[in-house]
C-alpha cells in the first residue's frame, strides 16, 4: 500500500497543545488537542497522537464516503466509533487515576486517615466509572475535552459527598487527587485504535443499527483506512512553549507569524487577526499574502486572557464551555473593574453577595476581556476587513458576541470570521511553514541536481 505524505504543525500553548496534520495537497488531514501539562514532551506527543487518530477518522470518512454502499451510513458509523474510542481512552485514564490515587494515599503523611482513605478513594473512582459512559453517548455535552477537567469536576462533586469534616476532610481527598492527576496526565496511555473500531462496530451490530453485511464491509474499509501508512515529512513547532519543544531551531517559528499565516490560510481575505489564548492576547495585521505587517501582544500581565475565564469557571464550579452560554442569558449590563485575573474571582464573589445575577456579571466579565483586546487591536492598527478571531476564547459565544458589539460600535460593520477550528490556527500556520520549508528544500535540491 502506498503511504500518504503528511506535514505536522504543533502549537505548544500555555493551556493547550494543538497539532495539525496537512496532506500533500495542503488540506487538513487531522487535528489534535490536549492540555499543556508539566511535561511538554508528553503534551506534544499526545497532541500529535490525537491528530493522527483524527487523521485516521478523516481517512475513514474519505473511504466511507467513496463507497457507494456505505456512504449513506457514514454519519451513523463515525460518531459511534469516535465516541467509543474516546470512552476507551477515558477508561484507561481512570484506571491510571485509580492506581495513582492509591499510591498517593500510601504516603506517611496520610497514615492517620487509613484505611478509610483507600476505601473512599476506591468508591469515588468506582462511581466515576459508572458515570463515564453517559459522557460519551454520541452528541453528549461534556464540560471539557480533557481528562483533567472531566475527572476533576466529578471528583470534586463526589469527594464533597463522601467527605466528613471529622473523619475524612475533603481537603485530604482533594490533595490526593491533585497529586495523582499530575502523574496520570504525564503518562502516555496506549489505546489501540484498531481494537476500538472493532468494538464499536460490534456494538452497532448489537444495537441493530447495522446489518451484518454492512459490518463486514465497514470493517474492511476501516482496516484500509487504519492501515494506511502516514509518513511525516516535516514538522514545525510554535507557541508559548516553542523553545522547549524537542525540535531543532530551524523547525521553530514565532507564534505571531504562524497565527498570521494560519488565519490567512483559513480566510484568505483576512487582514486583522485577534488571537486570545490562555495567557496571552495577540493582535496581528497581515497583508494579502498572509505576511505580518504589524502586531501587538500583552505581556507581563495575564489580565483578560483565557486563564481569566478559567479562574472564573473554577470559582463558579463550571467548565469553561459553560461560561459563554450562561453569559448569553444576561439581561442587564454590569461593569466589571478588575483587571487582574486573580482579583476577578474576588470581584465576582462581591457582586454575587450584592445580589447581582451571575449571568449579568459573567456578561460584564466577557466584555471586560474584550475591551482589553480592543485596546491591543487599536494599538496594532485597528480592525480591518476581514477580521478573524482565533484562539481558544473564540470558542466562547459570549466572548464572540462582546467582540462583535465592540467592533461594530467602534469600527462599523466588519466581516468577522470565526472558524470552528480557530484554536488550531497557530498549529495550522506551523504546518504550512513545515510544508513550505520542505518545498524550498526540494526545489534547491532539484536545482542542484
Amino acid at each position, binding site marked *: 500500500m502506498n503511504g500518504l505524505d503528511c506535514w505536522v504543525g504543533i502549537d505548544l500553548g500555555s493551556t493547550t497543545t494543538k497539532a495539525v496534520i496537512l496532506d500533500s495537497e495542503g488540506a487538513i488531514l487531522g487535528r489534535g488537542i490536549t492540555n499543556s501539562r508539566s511535561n511538554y514532551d508528553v503534551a506534544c506527543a499526545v497532541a500529535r497522537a490525537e491528530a493522527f487518530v483524527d487523521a485516521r477518522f478523516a481517512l475513514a470518512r474519505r473511504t466511507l464516503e467513496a463507497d457507494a454502499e456505505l456512504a449513506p451510513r457514514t454519519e451513523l458509523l463515525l460518531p459511534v466509533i469516535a465516541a467509543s474510542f474516546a470512552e476507551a481512552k477515558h477508561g484507561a485514564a481512570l484506571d491510571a487515576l485509580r492506581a495513582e490515587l492509591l499510591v498517593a494515599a500510601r504516603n506517611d503523611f496520610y497514615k492517620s486517615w487509613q484505611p478509610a482513605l483507600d476505601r473512599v478513594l476506591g468508591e469515588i473512582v468506582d462511581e466515576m466509572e459508572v458515570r463515564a459512559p453517559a459522557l460519551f453517548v454520541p452528541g453528549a455535552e461534556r464540560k471539557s475535552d480533557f481528562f483533567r477537567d472531566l475527572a476533576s469536576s466529578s471528583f470534586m462533586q463526589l469527594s464533597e459527598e463522601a467527605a466528613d469534616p471529622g473523619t475524612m476532610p475533603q481537603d485530604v481527598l482533594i490533595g490526593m487527587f491533585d497529586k495523582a492527576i499530575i502523574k496520570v496526565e504525564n503518562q502516555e496511555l496506549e489505546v489501540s485504535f484498531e481494537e476500538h473500531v472493532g468494538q464499536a462496530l460490534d456494538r452497532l451490530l448489537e444495537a441493530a443499527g447495522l446489518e451484518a453485511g454492512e459490518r463486514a464491509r465497514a470493517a474492511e474499509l476501516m482496516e484500509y483506512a487504519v492501515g494506511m501508512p502516514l509518513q511525516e515529512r516535516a514538522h514545525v513547532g510554535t507557541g508559548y512553549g516553542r523553545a522547549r519543544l524537542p525540535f531543532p531551531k530551524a523547525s521553530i517559528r514565532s507564534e505571531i*507569524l504562524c497565527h498570521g499565516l494560519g488565519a490567512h490560510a483559513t480566510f484568505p481575505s483576512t487582514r486583522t487577526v485577534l488571537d486570545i489564548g490562555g495567557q496571552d492576547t495577540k493582535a496581528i495585521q497581515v497583508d494579502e*499574502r498572509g*505576511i*505580518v505587517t504589524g*502586531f501587538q501582544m500583552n*505581556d507581563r500581565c495575564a489580565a483578560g486572557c483565557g486563564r481569566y475565564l478559567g479562574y472564573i469557571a473554577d470559582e463558579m464550579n463550571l467548565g469553561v464551555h459553560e461560561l459563554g452560554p450562561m453569559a448569553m442569558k444576561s439581561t442587564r449590563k454590569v461593569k466589571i473593574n478588575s483587571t487582574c485575573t486573580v482579583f476577578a474571582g474576588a470581584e465576582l464573589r462581591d457582586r454575587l453577595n450584592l445580589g447581582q445575577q451571575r449571568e449579568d456579571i459573567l456578561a460584564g466579565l466577557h466584555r471586560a476581556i474584550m475591551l482589553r483586546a480592543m485596546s491591543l487591536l487599536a494599538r496594532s492598527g485597528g480592525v480591518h476587513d476581514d477580521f478573524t478571531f482565533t484562539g481558544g476564547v473564540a470558542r466562547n459565544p459570549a466572548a464572540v458576541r462582546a467582540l462583535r458589539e465592540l467592533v461594530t460600535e467602534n469600527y462599523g460593520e466588519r466581516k468577522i470570521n470565526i472558524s470552528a477550528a480557530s484554536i488550531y490556527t497557530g498549529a495550522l500556520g506551523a504546518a504550512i511553514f513545515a510544508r*513550505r520549508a520542505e518545498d524550498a528544500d526540494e526545489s534547491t535540491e532539484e536545482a542542484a541536481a
Partner: protein
Amino acid sequence: MTETVPAQRDASMALQKKILGEHYHALAQAPETGAKTAYTFVPGNLTELIRSFDMLPVLPEINALQSGMRKQSGDFVREAEKLGHSEDVCTYVKCDIGMLKGGNIGPTGEHIPDPDLLLLSYTGCFTFMKWFELLKQEYDCEIAMLHVPYQGGGEITQEMVDYIVRQLEESVIPKLEKVTGKSFDEDAVSERLALSAQAEEDFVYVLESAKHRPSPIDGYFGGVFYIGPIFSAFRGTQAGIDYYQALRSEVDARIAAGKGPVTPAGEVTDERYRLVVEGPPNWTHFREFWKMFYEENAVCVASTYTKVGGLYDRGFRHDPSKPLESLARYCLGCYTNLNLPQRVDLISDYVREYSADGFLINSVKSCNSFSAGQLVILREVEERTGVPGGFIESDLVDPRYFSAANIKNRLESYLQMIEQRRQPVGATG
C-alpha cells in the same frame, strides 16, 4: 560614559573616557581649588555661560545614567522610594536623590561637590523643575530659573527668544554674578561660542557618516558616547574640539576601509538592517540591549536621543556674534522641545535620508516628555515613510523595568517581519 567603555573600543572612546574623567576629577578637587559648581541639565544647558564664570557644570542626568550603567541605580531608586517617592515617577530624579543620600559619589568614585548654584535651565520637560525644587530642599544654595517656552506652535518666535534673553539678563546672569563674585563678560562667552561651533561641525559630520553603506558608526548606542562631551561640560573648550577632530578622522578611516561600527560584542561586518531609533536607551542593561542588535546585524543609523542636547544636524550652530540670543535659540531648539508634528517630520526625514529599513521606538517608562505621544509618532511615521515601525518598552535606570526576554522577543519578531516583507510578492504565498 567613563567607566563603561565597551570591551572592544575605538581610540576615540579612550579619549572620551579620559576627558570626562578629568572633569570629574576637577569637580572632586573643587573644594580645594575653590572652583564653584553649577548643577544644570543637558537639554538647554548654558555651558559657555557657566564656563565664562569659571564655574564647573554638574549634570545630574549624566550621573544618573552612569549609575544605571554601573548597576547602582536600582539601589538608588529604591532608596528614594523609601523616602516617599512614588514608583510612578521619572527614575532619573529618584536615582539622583538616592545617590545624593548615599554621599554623592560620582561615577569615577570621587565625591561630587555640593552645588553653589542650581541652574534650572529647563528645556522640554517639566520634571526638571520638580527635580531642582527637590534638590533645593537638600542644599542651601542659590537657584536660578530659566523658563524656556515650548515650541507648541511648531516654531521659534522672536517673543520666545526675547523672553529668554530677558531672563538671562535679569535673573540668570545676576545669580551667576552673585554666586561667583565675577561680572558678566560677553566677549568671554562669545569666544567660547566660537569654539563650540567648531566642535559642532565635526560632531555633525560624525553623525551623518551613518548615511554611508555600511554605516561606519552606530548612531544610537555608539552615538551615546559621541554626544557625551558636547552635551555635557565640553562645549566651548579646546578638549571638546580635539575630541571631535579625533573622532572624525577615526570615522573617515572606517569609511575608507568600508567597515561597520564597533560594538562591545564585536564589529558589525554584515549590516543587515538599518534602523532609526526614537527614545533614550536603557542604561541598566545597555550592553545586553546593544548586543541584541548586534546579533541580528542591525545598525542604528540615526536616533533622536542624540538630539536632546541640540539639533546640530539640522543646521543650528552657536553664534558668537549674538551670544545671548544664540543661547536662547539653542535652548528652544533641543529635541524634546519640539512639538509632536515636528518630531514626526524629523523622524520621517531621518528614515529617508539614512535609507532606513525601519524605525524603532524604545519607550521608557520614566519619561513622559519622550513617551507621551510615541504611539502616534509610530503610526504617522509608518504612514509617511512606508517602512515598518517597531515598539519596545523599558526604562532608563530602573532595572525592574527591563525584561530581556520580552524585548528580545519583540525585537526578533520585528526584524523577522522586516525580513519577510522584503521578499518579493509570491515568494511566500
